[in-house]
């Protein structure tokens, strides 16, 4: 089909509908608003529901309820709203429920600002809610990829029975680019025999629960979940490599920042600097192994983010001190320029070993 010019926020909403999701629960917040509005307009047209909840907290618990019935369900918000959802997300993790959560990030902490940021990296990948658990975190870098990864997010959530986050930012959400909702690869999905849709008199009752009074019993569920995370890392880790074959300096960046870094890498090559780009697409699971292999070839890593250095630590862990890892970032809603990243690369290339 012909490409459509769409905002990233709208592309996520459209992709969700095309993925068979018929339930959206949200609460207004800038800069994700177009997503809610698109759902409000288009869900009723396909027999779906877009419901504005009384709070972010209520919205994520409506997600919990709908997910408990096995339905595909999505919610979206921006940074402060995601913090409010974190309690519910922890329960959803603990109850092994699939759902898709969108974070169109803005600057923080606190009310912060409304301009694009990536400062929720640690929250998303390390601690979205209390307890020992994870969610899948996907970081698209274009409107096209926002659509593709949204489709994939529903499958991953269903297969691994865990929440999957589309980790975007205000720029990706607000920008328009051509998008093609191409045929999504069909994956085999497990039956949702755990869903609460009434016993139908045919089985014992299902229980959706995250409470275990015996520590051994709780430990068992957590350990089992981490076995699943291991499989997830083995099978679903995604990344892009760009001009890395002979690179001496590897920029590591995700999302909108990766596009900026790509321009910087191209410009660096023109100046004779052997730069390349490593772009993690899954932030959880983080592509540790390929980064570690990359460390054998390059001289230095430059981790670029719109924060004060959060992924930086994951890169360092992955690289295992084989090579230096330097951070460059802008924060508070400031988008770095390709020139600034190039300047950092020039410094790396020109500086002492």
């Amino acid at each position, binding site marked *: 089909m012909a*490409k459509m*010019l769409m905002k990233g926020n709208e592309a996520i909403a459209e992709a969700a509908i095309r993925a068979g999701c018929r339930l959206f629960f949200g609460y207004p917040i*800038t*800069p994700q608003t177009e997503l809610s509005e698109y759902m409000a307009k288009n869900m009723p047209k396909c027999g779906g529901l877009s419901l504005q909840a009384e709070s972010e907290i209520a919205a994520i618990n409506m997600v919990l309820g709908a997910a408990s019935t096995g339905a595909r369900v999505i919610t979206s918000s921006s940074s402060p709203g995601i913090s409010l959802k974190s309690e519910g997300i922890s329960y959803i993790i603990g109850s092994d429920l699939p759902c898709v959560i969108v974070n169109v990030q803005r600057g923080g902490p606190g009310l912060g600002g*409304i*301009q694009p940021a990536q400062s929720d990296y640690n929250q998303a990948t390390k601690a979205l809610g209390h307890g020992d658990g994870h969610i899948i975190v996907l970081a698209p870098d274009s409107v096209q990829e926002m659509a593709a990864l949204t489709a994939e997010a529903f499958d991953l959530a269903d297969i691994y029975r865990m929440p999957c986050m589309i980790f975007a930012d*205000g*720029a990706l959400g*607000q*920008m*328009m*680019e*051509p998008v093609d909702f191409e045929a999504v690869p069909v994956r085999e999905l497990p039956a949702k025999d755990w869903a609460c849709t009434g016993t139908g008199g045919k089985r014992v009752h299902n229980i959706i629960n995250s409470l275990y009074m015996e520590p051994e019993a709780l430990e068992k569920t957590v350990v089992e979940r981490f076995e699943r995370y291991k499989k997830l890392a083995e099978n679903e880790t995604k990344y892009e490599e760009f001009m890395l074959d002979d690179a001496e300096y590897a920029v590591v960046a995700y999302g*909108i920042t990766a*596009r*900026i870094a*790509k*321009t*910087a890498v*191209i410009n660096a090559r023109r100046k004779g600097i052997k730069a390349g780009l490593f772009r993690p697409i899954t932030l959880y699971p983080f592509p540790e192994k390929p980064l570690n292999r990359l460390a054998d070839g390059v001289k230095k890593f430059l981790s670029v983010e719109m924060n004060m250095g959060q992924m930086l630590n994951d890169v360092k862990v992955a690289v295992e001190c084989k090579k230096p890892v330097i951070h460059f970032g802008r924060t508070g809603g400031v*988008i770095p*320029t*390709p*020139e600034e990243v190039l300047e950092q690369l020039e410094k790396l290339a020109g500086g002492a070993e």
Partner: protein
Amino acid sequence: MSAILLAGFGGQGILFAGKQLVLAGMKKDKQVSWLPSYGPEMRGGTCNCSVNIDDEPIGSPLVTAPDILIAMNKPSLLKFAGRVVPGGTVVYDTSLIDIAVGRDDVNAYGIPATGLANDAGIAKLANVILLGYLIKKTGLYEKDFFLEHIRGSAPKSKPELGELNAKALLIGYGYEG
């Protein structure tokens, strides 16, 4: 390769003008991106829009060093004129801007777009008049191609806007400054 920044007051049609440049680029199989400024400034304050039209995949969607600046008010010209790349282009509305661009290393083209729009009875289409002048001065798109495009740009609910947009485009294109 064109990195274009359009800037002015909210309500002047900055975002619409940017979107038309992008949609036309799509028809030419170019890589394109459109990024608006967003937030409270959308409601009455200053408004700007970053547009990229390129043969190569687009890196940063944010235009910080424009090849082309379209300025529709004085604050925008003051804020962004200094960021235009040397050899770049500034198209601005002299009806609302009473100062010069103030650089001799860029091509500055002033047009009284708002005045022309008012005279022609199409008061809200100064933005399209500026686009007409832009393509004449830069050759960003061929006249007939873009005229056809802008004519087809009206929403289904208001088809009469297509002809008005075409009229505005021709006024801009035909302006002899």
